[in-house]
């Protein structure tokens, strides 16, 4: 079977405290933008992405926030409940990886 073309983007960091990534699958994301309104820090936007040479509108983390995720995502980070960007997505295109170092 041919592998489905999926473009998975990991935005985040890895350091002494553990690792944290916002993972967006561009092949599932339909660019509806619901997550944009849900983010308390407004770090998500919908933008044109080139998938090979075809253009598609998908959710991305704004370029200027990509190196600040450690601080921007702080309000939603405690893993008690699902972050709003993840729970609002009807296609399950967004997930969060948060593994604190023991």
């Amino acid at each position: 079977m041919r592998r489905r073309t999926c473009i998975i983007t990991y935005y985040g960091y890895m350091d002494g405290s553990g690792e944290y990534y916002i993972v967006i699958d561009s092949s599932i994301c339909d660019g509806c933008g619901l997550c944009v309104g849900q983010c308390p820090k407004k770090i998500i936007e919908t933008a044109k992405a080139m998938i090979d040479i075809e253009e598609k509108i998908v959710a991305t983390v704004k370029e200027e926030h990509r190196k600040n995720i450690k601080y921007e995502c702080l309000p939603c980070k405690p893993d008690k409940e699902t972050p709003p960007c993840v729970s609002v997505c009807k296609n399950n295109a967004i997930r969060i990886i948060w593994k604190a170092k023991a």
Partner: protein
Amino acid sequence: MIEGSQQYWRWREYHLVFPEKRPKQSSIITAGVDIGSVSSKAVIMVNGEIYSISIMRTGSSSPDSAKKVMEWALKDTELKLSDIHYIVGTGYGRVNVPMAHNTLTEIACHAKGANYIWGPTVRTILDVGGQDIKAIKCDEKGKVLSFLMNDKCAAGTGRGMEVLADLLKIPIEEMGAVSLNVDEEPEPVSCTCVAFARTEAMWLLRRGWTKEKVLAAYMRAMAIRMCNLLQRVGCESELAVTGGQSKNVGIISRVESLLGMKTLPMPEWEKDGRDPMAAGAIGAALFAKALHEKAKK
């Protein structure tokens, strides 16, 4: 000039033209310009083959760097800027490439470029640039499947190597080999932060560590970081390293021993321009060809 004021951090800027790839009347001429945080690369392709390549340091202004590196690539060719059918800009400063017809992210370009340099067997790409590290997975056509965006800072990248070259007074191109010249591998440094690299290295030197040992400890820490990123996306063979640090044997051999996996060998880029450092620009020029052909249809 003060004695010993040699600029150890300065790496070789170069320009190569391959006259046998000279364009004919009907040739499709495309170019890729990759403005990185530390180096700027331009590649001119004729029918999808490298005709001219230039690599230089990025200046304080991205548009100027783009113009300069493009002018240099055009030098000693029969071409003018207006002869190029399609130009794609990429890299950190891609929005500031004034002559570009289109811009693409460096992720897609690096995957395409690595596919061109090493062929369809490349599955994982580790791009170690001047200010960030990226891990990319691609298919046999060089199409991106998944990628990991850089960490939150410039830790453990080419810029850090420049800082250490300057401090230890070792020419940057020899650092990799020097770092391998240790009897046993030291513990990695606790942090690869560029801002603290000087301080930490000086502290180790004062404790009596040799320059070789300091470099080995720093590069080991960098290699561990890179392997962590690779393991997050899932490292599949074959693994290619692109970006400026692909020329650093100290990093490459440590990554290989940590992963227990060989990386693809450095191609003979002086003969055909397939320089892994310019993978982004090569990929951009290939995309330029695809986009030009798509526009004509």
